[in-house]
């Protein structure tokens, strides 16, 4: 059960309107998620603060923002008990709509570019199964749970709406579809991810894998794509 504590935390929030309040002294509860903090600011300090959230359980990917520069899901990131200040910013690399809200359209444009859905091969058995113990599944399963939250895109440092780079999420999705034996678009997908906006714009920063709230590993997916470029697709 959450208990009110007399401790306060100093919060600095990136605001679009220079006339609005940036710093707040917010009373802590224990435990306290970043989202709790934002809701407290909205209710008790400044109702005009702009931020997004929806499911509150790390399923929808809506509440992504940066805490001290690091991309997180606000709903599932606790504030450490001994933390007395925090800085919140919108995701990096995307146009800011207001305060902590960003326009995710550039992210989803890159997502769309790799055709992020299965295009079934002709003449498959119905249902088209891949055995759980197959090598394919070992590659696909760990990469499946992307909630398109954009944390990896923000953490990358190269992915940006002003640059032509597919970004870690799109590349991860492309990888698992290329690995899927039921998918017919593998060759074209591999071409798309090895083009000038694909794997070669990755600079081995590992920011993507470090921040993924679902524990996905886009960096490993990109390394795998580079190998497939040289060795050919798994088939």
């Amino acid at each position: 059960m959450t208990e009110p504590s007399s401790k306060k935390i100093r919060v600095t929030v990136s605001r679009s309107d220079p006339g609005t309040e940036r710093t707040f002294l917010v009373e802590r509860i224990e435990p306290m998620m970043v989202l709790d903090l934002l809701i407290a600011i909205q209710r008790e300090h400044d109702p005009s603060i702009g931020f997004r959230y929806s499911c509150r359980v790390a399923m929808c990917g809506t509440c992504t923002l940066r805490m001290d520069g690091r991309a997180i899901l606000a709903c599932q990131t606790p504030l450490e008990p001994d933390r007395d200040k925090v800085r919140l910013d919108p995701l990096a690399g995307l146009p800011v709509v207001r305060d902590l809200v960003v326009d995710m359209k550039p992210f989803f444009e890159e997502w769309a570019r790799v055709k992020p859905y299965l295009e079934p091969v002709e003449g498959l058995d119905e249902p088209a199964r891949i055995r759980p113990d197959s090598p394919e599944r070992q590659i696909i399963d760990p990469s499946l749970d992307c909630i398109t939250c954009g944390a990896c895109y923000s953490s990358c440092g190269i992915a940006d709406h002003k640059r032509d780079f597919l970004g870690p999420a799109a590349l991860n999705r492309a990888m698992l579809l290329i690995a899927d034996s039921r998918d017919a678009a593998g060759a074209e997908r591999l071409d798309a991810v090895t083009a000038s906006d694909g794997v070669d714009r990755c600079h081995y920063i590992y920011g993507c894998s470090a921040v993924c709230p679902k524990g996905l590993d886009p960096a490993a997916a990109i390394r795998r794509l580079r190998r497939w470029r040289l060795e050919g697709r798994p088939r």
Partner: protein
Amino acid sequence: MSTPTRHRGGEFRPGDRSDVPVRPSGGGRLFYYVTVRVTGLILAVLVLGHFAVTHITTDVAETGSDFIARRWGSALWLLWDWAMLTAAMLHGAAGVWIAIEDYTPDPEKRRRRQRLLVSASTLLFVLGLIVIVAAIF
């Protein structure tokens, strides 16, 4: 994104949707990837060796024109320095090309800077080549 919608008639592009702009695919990427790594590996040996010979085994104050004349009397060092020049200009220019791409969002400015990079690198490479060829005779 500012690139206009563009389809290359008939050619399948994954994710082709009329509202998502299609990017022209660049051919040179694999060339860049392989070149940077192969030249890098070569340079790891050649440059560290070059620095050792000109600064460590000999004091740098004694590497004047006599020192060079002696070194370039041997075919090994001429070959070494030619390989180092070629690899270094390729490797360095490729690296700076990518940095320009990352830091110049405007396509026109970017192309201009990259053209400048290629011109300057080529000129310097030719200059170095002339020096080495002249030393053969």
